[in-house]
């Protein structure tokens, strides 16, 4: 690669998953009071999916955050 230092791919993945995680978490919380028309809405898949995405994305973002 050229001499410029490149941010690791894990950082980009972390940021995107964190954004998706926050969006899913917000949607999941609202689905507690307004369940969507899907099978097994009481499993709250969107909420738990949001939790996983936020934790994984947040972890990657923090760990690979560019430092001087």
């Amino acid at each position, binding site marked *: 690669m050229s001499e410029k230092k490149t941010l690791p791919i894990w950082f980009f993945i972390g940021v995107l998953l964190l954004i998706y995680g926050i969006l899913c978490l917000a949607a999941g919380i609202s689905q507690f009071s307004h369940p969507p028309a899907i099978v097994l809405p009481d499993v709250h*898949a969107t909420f738990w999916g949001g939790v996983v995405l936020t934790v994984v994305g947040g972890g990657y973002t923090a760990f690979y955050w560019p430092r001087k």
Partner: protein
Amino acid sequence: MHTTLSVFLAETSLIKMSGLDISMIVIYFLAVLGIGWYLKGRTSTGEDFFLAGRSMTAWVAGLSFLAANLGALELMGWAASAYEYGILAAHWYWIGAIPAMVFLGLVMMPFYYISRTHSVPGYLKLRYGESTRALGGVCFAFMTVLMSGINMYAMAAVMQVVLGWNLHFSIWVSSITVAVYVGLGGLTSAIFNEVLQFFLIWLGALVIPIVGLTECGGWTGLKDRIIQNVTHGGTYLHMWSTLGNFQDNPMGIQWVGIVFGLGFVISFGYWTTDFLVVQRVITTKDLRSAQMAPIIGAFFKMAVPLIVILPGLIGLGVFNRHGMTLVSADVAKPGQYTYNDVLPLLLVRYAGPGLLGLGVTALIAGFMSGMAGNVTAFATVWTYDIYRPLIRPLFRSQTSMAATATVGGGAGNGPVDGDEVAAAGDDQHYLKMGRWSTIIGVLVSIGTAYLAMQFSSIMDYVQALFSFFVAPLFGTILLGMLWKRATAAGGFWGLLIGTASSVGMWVWVKIDPSALSIIALSKYAQPMAQNMYQALWSWCICVIITVVVSYMTQPIPEARLKGLVYGCTEMPSSAHLPWYKRPFFWGMLALVFLVILNVMFW
């Protein structure tokens, strides 16, 4: 805004998305374009553009190696196959992939890596000479760009059915996005996006097996439902015990075809010689990473049936129970769901707003990374294996031609020869050619997509054409790496006649369908068996011709085979590494897991 969007949307679609779901797709497009823009300033040489600077770690290369194959068509297609054939479809992920990936890492990768070749046709040049590279390079480039277009059309067709998107909108938006991010950042950009897509696919698709198994009452409950819902449902749940005879399983195949046709020839041919996947591995920073990358990919590949095959089985368990049977696309009536709809239908069944957007984004990401994989492989082979040796010399002065000294060369000037090293000025020229060939590759793909739109049968023909080439190519490269007596003429004629024989068998069955029983050695054989046996015979023919012609021609001096062939190459030892860092240990562990999985689902 709503009126503008409605131009691109059809009235009916399988999935109705909310504003949140659409915003997740928009964020994905912005992210991939942003990554391409970010990497543009870091792509200044040909090696950066075509080989990602040979700087990737084993994990990045391994995930990218797997993701290049894990496109959305793959996901939806094999989920459909699992619905149609049951757990037998998992053979394509286990015996049909894992041994080949381990073999690539432990046996073949040292030769690709030590020879410092840019591409698989580049290895053919080093080992067998220019004519074999020309044959391999032209076939590969032609097929790759056609496949890219056909995948693009398939994606647009799926998006039309699933999301209600206009065909032209899908084709142009996805192809322009791919052209921009690959044109800017080259292979690095494609690899970054493939790893991103890998995460999206896993996280977006996991909702189906988790909630699906919850609905069915776990694996035992699912098996009970399939046995109740489907005629001969028990045969949908075993991987080997029904393979004794062609007529005992839903696929109409027998264990010989699975073991030797799929497990050996097709699988090894695809995973070890298809430059689309091999290119990801040769970008690694050192030999150990190059060896570990496909082995890391093998572990994840073993887990892919969880998000592909299991959803197909869940479809058998939940849809058939409610009187909703999916049918083959060939016989589907308007409004009737087909096997190919099983994954989107399950996504709609279990994923609410938010997760639905993530799942659809994963499908789109899968389509685009598949296209990007084809385009990057095309750009490399076009630039290094066709343009540089065959076209550019025609436009250069005689002096320059002598300096390049690549055209018509015999086999084996040894690795890292003059052809593989470019002067600084040349490098910038090839970098520019790489960017242009990316754009041209995308434009040709768009043309192919429109051609496929007019003549849908072209899709079957091109997919078949691609498979013609892979099995014989594996024979040529395997003999090239492991048998030093193989000569330039042997390699060329073996590859040519092996490919021609594969085409011949395919045409024979097209003209006379009863020929299938001769090729597959059984009157009960189904079309799936044809691919296996066609590959097996064409590989055998390629090997026999290569051996016979090689013995009839002068051997290549061993000094020229250094770094290219087993027995003439000093293989780097990993004895200095602790056991848990050795590729051999992890390769063997992958094979042990493979055996355990097959026994579990026997």
